[in-house]
C-alpha cells in the first residue's frame, strides 16, 4: 500500500464510522452542533495520532515488544488514558465552553473502539511513519463523518450552523420560506439514531449500486471473451 493510498483510505473506503461502524457513542451524542463535532474531531485526532506513534515506537524495539506482549492491551489502555487526560486538561483550561458541552465524552475517548482497534490492528505491526499517516487519515475520516451528521442535525433541528463560538450561519430563512419551523426532533436523541441510520442506508445503497455495476462489467468482459 502506497503512502497516498494509506492516507486516503480513512475518508471513504475504511471510514471508521460509516464503514467499520466504530465510535458510534460520541457520533450520536455530541453531534447536535457543528462546533461540537469540530472539537471532538480535534481531540480525537490528537489522541489517535499520539497513541499510534507511541505504540508503534514501543513495538519497533524487539525486546520491549516481547516484554509487554502478555499485558499489551492494558499497556495500550494506560497510554491512551494518559493522552486523554492531557486533552482533558488542555480543553478545561483553554476551551471551557466546549469542554462543558462535550462533557463525559472527552473521557470516553479512552474506551473508544477506534483508538484501541488501530493500536492493536495497525500501529503494533507497522512502522512509525505509516502509523502516523494511518492515525491522521482515520482521525480526519472520523471528523468528516461527525461533521456530516452534525450538519444535518443542526440545520434541520435548529436552522443554524455554528462554526465556532459566536460565528454562526443563520439559515432560518429557509424554514420561513417553506412556512414551517425547524424540526426539533432532529436535535433530540431519537433524531440522532434516525439520522445515522439514514446516512448509513445511503452509503449502503451507493455501495450496492457500485457492486452491481462491477458485476455487470465482469459479465460483459466474460461475454466478449
Amino acid at each position: 500500500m502506497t503512502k497516498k493510498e494509506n492516507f486516503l483510505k480513512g475518508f471513504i473506503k475504511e471510514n471508521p464510522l460509516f464503514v467499520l461502524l466504530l465510535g458510534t457513542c460520541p457520533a450520536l451524542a455530541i453531534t447536535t452542533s457543528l462546533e461540537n463535532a469540530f472539537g471532538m474531531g480535534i481531540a480525537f485526532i490528537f489522541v489517535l495520532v499520539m497513541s499510534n506513534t507511541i505504540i508503534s515506537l514501543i513495538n519497533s524495539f524487539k525486546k520491549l515488544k516481547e516484554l509487554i506482549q502478555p499485558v499489551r492491551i492494558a499497556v495500550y489502555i494506560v497510554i491512551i488514558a494518559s493522552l486523554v487526560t492531557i486533552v482533558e486538561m488542555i480543553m478545561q483550561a483553554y476551551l471551557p465552553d466546549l469542554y462543558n458541552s462535550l462533557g463525559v465524552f472527552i473521557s470516553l475517548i479512552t474506551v473508544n473502539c477506534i483508538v484501541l482497534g488501530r493500536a492493536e490492528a495497525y500501529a503494533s505491526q507497522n512502522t512509525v511513519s505509516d502509523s502516523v499517516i494511518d492515525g491522521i487519515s482515520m482521525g480526519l475520516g472520523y471528523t468528516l463523518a461527525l461533521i456530516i451528521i452534525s450538519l444535518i442535525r443542526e440545520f434541520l433541528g435548529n436552522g443554524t450552523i455554528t462554526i465556532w463560538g459566536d460565528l454562526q450561519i443563520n439559515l432560518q430563512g429557509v424554514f420561513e420560506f417553506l412556512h414551517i419551523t425547524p424540526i426539533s426532533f432532529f436535535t433530540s436523541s431519537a433524531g440522532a439514531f434516525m439520522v445515522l441510520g439514514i446516512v448509513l442506508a445511503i452509503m449502503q445503497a451507493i455501495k450496492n449500486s457500485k457492486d452491481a455495476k462491477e458485476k455487470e462489467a465482469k459479465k460483459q468482459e466474460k461475454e466478449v471473451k
Partner: protein
Amino acid sequence: MSFNQIIFIIFSSMLLENVILSQFLGICSFLGVSKSRKSAVGMGLSVVAVIVLATTVTWLIYNYVLVLFDLVYLKTIVFILVIASLVQIIEIIIKKFVPSLYKSLGIYLPLITTNCAVLGVAIKASQNGLTFFNMLLYALGSGLGFLLIMFIFSFLREELEKRKVPKAMSGIPIALVVASILAIIFSRYVGIVKEDEGEKEKELPRTANVISMHLTPSDEYLDNIIRRMK
C-alpha cells in the same frame, strides 16, 4: 430518604435517562450483541453486575483518595484501570467457582472493559457528587435500563431478521431506525414518576434536574387545559 425519592432515582436513571437511548453510552455492544436474545440478556446481566461493582469501587476511590489528595485530574486513568482489573477479577472468580455461569457469560466479560456505559456511569456518579446510597441506586437503575433495552431490542431485531426490508436498509441501518422509534417511545416516559415536593434533590445528576423540572406541568399549560375544558 423517602420511598418516593428511591423510586424517583431508579426510574429516572432507568427510563427517562436511559443509558443507551438518551445518553448514548454502550452503543457498540447495543448494536453488536443484540442479534440474538440469549446473548443480549447475557451481556445485559454482566453489564448490570459490573456497573454496580465498578461504580461503587470508583466512587469510594474518587471520594476518599482522589479528592483528598487533590488528584481529581487522574480520574480517567484510575477509573479505567480499576474497571479493567475488576473485570479480570470477576472473570477469574466466576471461572473458579461457577463454571456453568462462566460458560454462558464468560465471552462477554472482556468486552465490558471497553463498554463506555461502565466508565460513563462511573464518571457521572462520582463527578456529580452523589451520596453513597444515591450512587448505588443510580448505578443499579442505569444497569437495569441497559438490560431492559437490550432485551427489548433483541426481540425486535429477531423479528426484523424474518421480515423483508429494502436492500439498502438491511442490517444496521434498519436497526438504528428501530432504535430511533424506541427512543421516541422512551422519551414519552417523562412524567411517569413524580419527585418529592418537600426537598429538591441536590445530589442527582445535572440532566436529571433538567428532566425533573419538566415533571410538573407549568401554570401556562394547566391554564390552557382548563380553558379548553370550559
